[in-house]
């Protein structure tokens, strides 16, 4: 009863806060002039002109020497001295599925069962989450939302972060299946020891058997009855769905790549804490990595103290396709600063931007329309008065998703204004 009351109270309390409506479709032509454009593919245009119409980019070019006919635009934004970026993408997050981590009733990310390829994150995605605007206002305009909790966690989808409902939000629906690869080791906090996972062989066999059967099923032309789980996995075998494999250990990664090769699948490694040790292997097998948090502790007390800080640089230098992710909800708004931190440890600044944009889009399979400021792609972008990777200077002023200028209001800004004015009135 008490629990129920908490939930009721919570719903009530939250519904009181105003939530900005999603922006209407772009009308007319918009130009942004003079900003430093970080294209997302590694290039920078110091004094750029960027124009878009119907949600698509018309021009991305050097503004030097161009005389803009302001009248042909519905809106011209002068952004001298400012920075413009493709909308950052936050992959591997339960945003919209989890509102308050510790309150079970607000969690919709973990389904019961071990093999859940049929589970779809998208249908539980709450477009009215109070968290989403706080993510958006730091430059994340798209996300990949994921279920978790099983061996096969379920299906992920890519969403854009300004929508009325999950149908509007869906950018690429059910684009992949997440697998939590068995861990070779297990840690006991009581004895503080890490030892080999005794059930590893069995757990791995289960995965292999499951994929073997699902694969055979997908070839069967005369099915007597449908198996929803195996139906969901068809896309993995015909190449229409990505396979995301969550694992960190170097040995596991190599093993996983070899295992899924049997099914003609090149997995995306999610995590890959030790991916730097086998960068050549990843490169030669074209295996991309959604890298675990930069703001993380090294695995071992013997490890280089800055290992997680420098891993992105190491993968970049090795030519591996990789991107940033955090596997967080509310903390996802710090994704750009993780990228910034990696720059502090040797990653090129524009490569860091790619790790938030084009690399991510490539891995998710949406790079034809998203991920960089290139003509013909979505006008999903934002302007910051400073360097968006540095909290010291970042200030997102304007953001567009597919040409729609989205609200940067958040519940937190509202509360800030509310109490700021309270104190001002006391003076």
């Amino acid at each position, binding site marked *: 009863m008490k629990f129920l009351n908490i939930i009721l109270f919570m719903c009530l309390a939250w519904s009181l806060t105003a939530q900005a409506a999603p922006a209407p479709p772009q009308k007319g032509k918009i130009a942004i002039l003079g900003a430093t454009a970080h294209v997302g593919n590694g290039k920078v245009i110091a004094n750029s002109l960027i124009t878009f119409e119907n949600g698509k980019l018309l021009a991305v070019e050097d503004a030097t020497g161009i005389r803009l006919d302001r009248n042909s635009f519905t809106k011209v934004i002068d952004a001298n001295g400012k920075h413009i970026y493709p909308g950052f993408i936050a992959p591997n997050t339960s945003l919209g599925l989890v509102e*308050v981590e510790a309150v079970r009733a607000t969690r919709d990310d973990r389904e019961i069962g071990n093999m859940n390829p049929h589970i779809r994150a998208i249908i539980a995605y709450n477009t009215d989450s109070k968290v989403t605007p706080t993510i958006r206002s730091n430059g994340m305009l798209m996300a990949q939302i994921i279920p978790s909790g099983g061996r096969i966690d379920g299906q992920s989808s890519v969403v854009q972060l300004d929508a009325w409902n999950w149908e509007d939000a869906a950018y690429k629906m059910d684009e992949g299946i997440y697998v939590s690869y068995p861990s070779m080791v297990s840690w006991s906090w009581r004895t503080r020891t890490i030892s*080999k996972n005794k059930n590893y062989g069995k757990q791995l066999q289960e995965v292999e058997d499951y994929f073997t059967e699902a694969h055979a099923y997908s070839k069967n032309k005369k099915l007597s009855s449908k198996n929803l789980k195996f139906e969901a996995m068809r896309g993995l075998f015909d190449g229409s769905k990505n396979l995301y494999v969550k694992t960190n250990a170097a040995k596991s990664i190599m093993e996983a790549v070899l295992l899924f090769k049997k099914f003609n699948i090149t997995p995306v490694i999610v995590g890959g804490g030790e991916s730097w040790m086998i960068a050549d292997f990843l490169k030669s097998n074209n295996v991309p990595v959604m890298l675990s948090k930069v*703001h993380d502790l090294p695995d071992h007390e013997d490890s280089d103290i800055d290992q997680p800080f420098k891993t992105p640089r190491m993968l970049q230098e090795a030519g591996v396709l990789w991107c940033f992710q955090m596997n967080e909800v509310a903390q996802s708004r710090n994704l750009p600063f993780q990228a910034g931190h990696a720059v502090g440890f040797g990653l090129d600044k524009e490569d860091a931007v790619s790790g938030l944009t084009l690399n991510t889009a490539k891995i998710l399979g949406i790079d034809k329309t998203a991920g960089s400021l290139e003509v013909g792609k979505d006008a999903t972008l934002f302007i910051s008065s400073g360097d968006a*990777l540095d909290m*010291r200077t970042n200030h997102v002023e304007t953001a567009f998703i597919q040409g729609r200028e989205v609200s940067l209001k958040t519940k937190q800004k509202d509360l800030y204004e509310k*109490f700021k004015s309270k104190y001002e009135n006391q003076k």
Partner: protein
Amino acid sequence: MSKTKLLFLTLVLTFLGQNLLAQVTFQRNGVYDEREGFYAFTNATIFKSYNEKVENATMIIKDGRVQTIGQKIPIPAGAVVVDLKGKFIYPSFIDLYSSYGLPEAKRAERSFRRTQQFNSKKEGAYGWNQALKPEFRAHENFTTDEKAAKGYRGAGFGTVMTHQADGISRGTATLVVLGEDREHQMILKEKTAHMLSFKKGTSPQSYPGSLMGGIALLRQTYMDANWYKNGGKNEELNLSLEAWNEINSLPAVFDIRGKLEGLRAAKLGKEFGKTYILKGNGDEYQRLNELKATGCSMILPVKFPDAFDVEDPYDAMLVSLAQMKHWELAPTNLSRIANAGIEFTLTTDGLDKKSEFLKSVKKAIKHGLSEEAALKALTHTPAKMMGMSNQIGSLKSGNLANFIITSENVFGEKAKIHHNWVKGKPFVLKKLDEADLEGNYSLKVGNQTFKLMVDDNNKMKVEENDSTKIDVKSSISNGLITLTFSPTKKETNLFRLSGTIGKKEWSGNGTLIDGTWTSWSAKYEGAPEKKDGDKKADKKKGKGKGKGKKDKVASDDKLGDVIYPFMAHGYKERPTENNYLIKNATVWTNEKSGILENTDVLVRNGKVVEIGKNINKDVGTRIDGTGMHLTCGVIDEHSHIAISRGVNECTEVSTAEVSIADVVDSEDIDIYRQLAGGVTTSQLLHGSCNPIGGQSAIIKLRWGFSPEEMKFEGAPGFIKFALGENVKKSRSSTNNRFPDTRMGVEQVYRDYFTRAKEYKIASQRKEAGFRRDLDLETVVQILDGERHISCHSYVQSEINMLMHVADEMDFKVNTFTHILEGYKVADKMAKHGAGGSTFSDWWAYKYEVVDAIPYNAALMHEQGVTTAINSDDAEMARRLNQEAAKAVMYGGVSEEDAWKFVTLNPAKLLHIDHKVGSIKEGKDADLVLWNDNPLSVYARAEMTFVDGLKLFDRKLDVEIRKEIAAERNRLIQKMLADKKGGGKTRPARGKKSRHYHCDDSEDEMID
């Protein structure tokens, strides 16, 4: 008593004893058959004591005691003469840490999972805590255990001190001999020692749930026992306290789980005038100086770790450098302890088999322990520790006839124990006249011939061919021998042979695999081939020859250094230079002078002595700070690193008596990692499990120093309070602990502060029978302004509440920590004088933080609240500079002020701003040199100084990595060689410590 008198008395007693009739209380079924046990052992090398060796000597024993030892002693008539030519006699060994003959403690039923048991469920007038069993008496529960006794005797032991190893106070141990007679005869002394530990054992009671709780419990118990003695008994009968007082004067043995626990136990003991005997763990060499300084003697194990299986390079990554180094250095523990002059004895505890004991001792001897020190530790010292030197530990006249007869020097390579005599009764392990059969034989069975190989343990094998050897089962007794084996590996039927042992030749009859009878014989062919290792050892011994090779052997045995702390990134030697001149940096002073460009800072003897332009003084090392930023060190108001076994004592609403200062862990890699993030001072806070939590420790991140050395000198005391979901246990569906609501939380405070006031008045009256209560005493310190509060808090209602309670009860809330809704009551906080130490941008992880905003720090700051940003997290503390910068982003705080959020302001909140928190003449030289504006995400700490000592240097760190890699490789190769040479290995297995957060509350006191 004078020496001569004593001698006389001893003599009288000795002779009287002999003439007395042996009387027992038991009924006899038959005629009187007590024997004198009158023996004369002749021609032996006898160690009368560890340092008194008599060659070619005779020992006379009678009635279970030694009569005399000496050369050319006339053999008395009536004594059985045993010729021990070539053999050795030693006093038998003593093991002071044993559970021999005692029943295992039964695990009491635990209450339903996750509900708490507040009081003892032991029936009777016993103490409140079930983990304290001072009333337990080992001698009342002891029964002779023949099987276990045999194991001990086989390793040379004649006496053990045994106890029930269960609980924090385990009651008394008893000293028993390892014979097989009635317990009445075996117990030498009923109560020898008070046994203690920091393990809760089978107690189902919730308290203590952390190491610091265990320490506090002992502290309170010492005081309670004192109270009981001085009048408390009039209030209540308490059998546990009574028992405690009864045994308090006995030697106290403290079972520790590692070097730091040893320091903690010793420190606790010192508070009550106790010098414990520490039962160690084998890692004492890693903090030798500090342990030596405690003055404690030790009972040490000889269990040395096996090598890890490191053949797979990825698997090997699980094993830390510390584990590998410990594998290499553990066998040197005893020699290092001995060389340091610490008194110690040895125990078999921890060994899988007692038969490994002497092998391990020999290993320690190979690693530098002298044989004399080993023998002393096994005989003299334990007897002395228990005040039993007049009975055991040496073979002086009148002592018990507890001795062993060995084939050679007991520490010799091939030494065998022939006899183990207990109170004058022999136990034969290997007959004195048993032939030494070691060698190769030509074995003829019918018309087949085999090569039979016998090792020094009479283990036999026949050789089928070069690579295949077949085990031979054999039994030898009284000149007869039986052999069974299969003639080939494939054959399942066996040859069965029986015969007699002659000189260099055995013969007899037996059956072949088909059952036909035949005769057989075995002829001695020569000594066995030596293994590689033996050859080397021989050459080493050989005089003159192979000099060059001798050196090679020595270099093969080269051992790594002991490093401090004992883990990767530890120091061989701590830096000592604390004079520096940092030139031409951008200096963030945090003082009125603000940020100074192109400025020099002079550090002398660990203090900042001058700040200015173009300082040109010849002192210490010059560092070019051109293009760099110099700041004071980051101060983390809320940290949980460097804590051993439990951040929460979660079991009671107030645990003000516990203190993180008791459990600071100097061996936490996070210290080094955080230095690399510019942190120099941290407040290690108790968790947030209870409204009144434990006391905190403020430390400087003095990497490589001991826990005591890390503590911030002169910092005032702090205590953790907590409000909201954690103390209500909102995430538990079975909470049975008051309070369950915020309403209850208020009443906890009102109750405790009311009682603390009454307690203070009572304590001032100094009446007899007044009981010191460490919990309330700590709360009184708060009322007296001697201890400050750092209160975990989230929502405005509770923050408001506590300030009201504080105002009414007349105390101050120094700091609200976390304080995510501080922005809603910032004006009230400023009025109360409370500071706010918050997260930069955390929210939405639990219900009470749904209104948290990243503008919190800015709003509190604007209202005049002393505002800090903390980590509460081992990872985040590595980048608190970035967290501070978020206050620039959210709320537009100036860079200078934002920087103070992680430096000067926390220093103020901790009342240490007169020493740290800014760069100012006279303050501690806790400095960080950054490669960029410290608020930038791109900034890296390049050097971090604590008290002028450069404890982190990024360039040096690159070198350290190379050293770690090289040392790991050396040890891995050594382990591989060890495995190849037949050494035992175990699977690669890593150690990983926990990273604590506020709400970690699992019971850490269960074994």
